């Protein structure tokens, strides 16, 4: 017959107690960790979306600026002007704030390009070159709208050296209208996304804090001040926000790099854009901190101010 050694029994008992205690601690720890992971992931997802959207908006602005800066105003010049006078005129335009670039087209160059277009030598037919020299001005994006152009046109027409000012009025209107509506759609979409995203994070954090509402209650009843109760929750929230933001930055930069590698023509990463990307990363970190800070503080406040009865009714 096997005799049970009482010491063995005690050891087994102790082992089982420690084992179960260890298990309980691990499960509690896991629960807290999993709620942290959920928060970090949702913050990261939201920040990635917002980051990519910001890149899109910035890119859209570059594209729209590019389109706008391709609008050309052509100045037909007095044929009597000498080259030096034309050069002086071009220089005076070059110092204007609204000019992006100017190009002097001599009447010979103009004739050459018209000949190529028409496919016949019209100078020979006519016996002289009827074209006049011109200056082509492309505008800065912010001046490329009908109001500014009308004002620029008036200013230019006052100059006696200029015979005529020509630009495609209809096209300027159409470009601005289209770009305006596209920007509006993107802005409304971003606004809605930001709203949904902040709501989502707010709810996730509130749910995590909701699970500890009785802990908050106990703190409250032993005479802890609101600020004292809030501090650990807010600090934990901010920590999650920062971790989420760094995760988001990594993924956003990764996505931008992949797109840039595959679609070089988009010129996603230019020298000037490095600064923009830096600002974008900073924006993601700040937003991550701000959202988690406000959400945790509001959620703790909500549960800390409720009476015990209201907590049970939740």
């Amino acid at each position, binding site marked *: 017959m096997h005799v049970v050694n009482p010491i063995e029994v005690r050891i087994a008992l102790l082992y089982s107690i420690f084992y179960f*205690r260890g298990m*309980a601690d691990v499960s*509690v720890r896991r629960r807290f960790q999993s709620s942290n992971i959920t928060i970090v992931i949702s913050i990261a997802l939201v920040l990635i979306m917002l980051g990519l959207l910001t890149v899109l908006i910035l890119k859209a602005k570059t594209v729209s600026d590019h389109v706008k800066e391709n609008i050309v105003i052509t100045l037909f010049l007095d044929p009597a002007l000498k080259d030096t006078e034309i050069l002086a005129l071009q220089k005076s335009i070059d110092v204007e704030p609204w000019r992006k670039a100017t190009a002097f087209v001599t009447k010979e160059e103009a004739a050459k390009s018209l000949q190529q277009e028409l496919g016949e030598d019209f100078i020979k037919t006519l016996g002289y070159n009827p074209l006049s020299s011109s200056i082509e001005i492309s505008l800065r994006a912010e001046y490329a709208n009908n109001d500014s152009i009308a004002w620029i046109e008036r200013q230019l027409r006052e100059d006696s050296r200029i015979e005529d000012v020509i630009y495609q009025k209809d096209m300027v209107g159409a470009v601005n209208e289209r770009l305006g509506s596209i920007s509006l759609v993107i802005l409304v979409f971003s606004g809605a996304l930001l709203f949904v995203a902040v709501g989502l994070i707010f709810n996730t954090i509130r749910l995590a804090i909701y699970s500890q509402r*009785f*802990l908050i*209650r*106990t*703190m*409250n*009843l*032993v*005479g*802890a*001040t*609101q600020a*004292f*109760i809030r501090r650990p929750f807010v600090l934990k929230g901010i920590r999650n926000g920062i971790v989420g933001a760094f995760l988001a930055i990594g993924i956003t930069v990764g996505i931008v790099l992949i797109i840039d590698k595959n679609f070089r023509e988009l010129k996603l990463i230019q020298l000037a854009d490095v600064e923009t990307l830096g600002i974008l990363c900073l924006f993601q970190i700040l937003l991550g901190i701000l959202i988690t800070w406000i959400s945790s503080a509001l959620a703790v406040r909500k549960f800390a*101010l409720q*009476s*015990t*009865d209201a907590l049970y009714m939740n």
Partner: protein
Amino acid sequence: MSTDAIINLNKVSVFQKHNLVLSNVSFTINKGELVYLVGETGSGKSSLLKMLYVDVPLAQGEATIAGYDIAKVKRKQIPLLRRKLGIVFQDFQLLYDRSVNENLYFVLKATGWKNKKEIQDRASEVLDKVGLVTKGHKMPHELSGGEQQRVAIARALLNKPEVILADEPTGNLDPKTSEGIIRLLKEISETGTAVLIATHDRIVTELFPSRTLTCVQGEIQDSLQ
């Protein structure tokens, strides 16, 4: 009202949600008194205690506790008021994610104690008072119900309260353990702290007879009168 009065109620009405459960409640509890608040479940004992620790607002009448006028107390003052009270619950309400010592340290830190040595000394002092000086490192779930309630009482004693409000402190305990808890509360009252115990446990009130406030048909009968 005598200068020893810790709790003074004058024509107070007590509501549960919107139902009036007690009306015209007037009594005074002095320093060092042990008072039972008895009555059936739902008779308004807990609601009266909640009103005293400002968990629910005072709807009607005048009430002062530990020098605070409950009707006029501002939200920012509530933590300060609660530091003058010790609250003990039926379900202990300890923080189960930390050890007994950490539970006590937390309350001390939350109520403005800064010096680590003083915090540790005060914690072991109160644990000594409730006979648990060797159990400070344990987690609450490793203790028996009676021991957990003793920790809750130790916690209530930390800031040397003027009054202890105990809401069914023996509700979850067996008679033998209950007796120990009430004896402890009685000893505390003998050191000068007023103790108000809400209970429906007749054995308790018979073992340690003291002044009793009974909730009957929406009113309070005082055994002193």
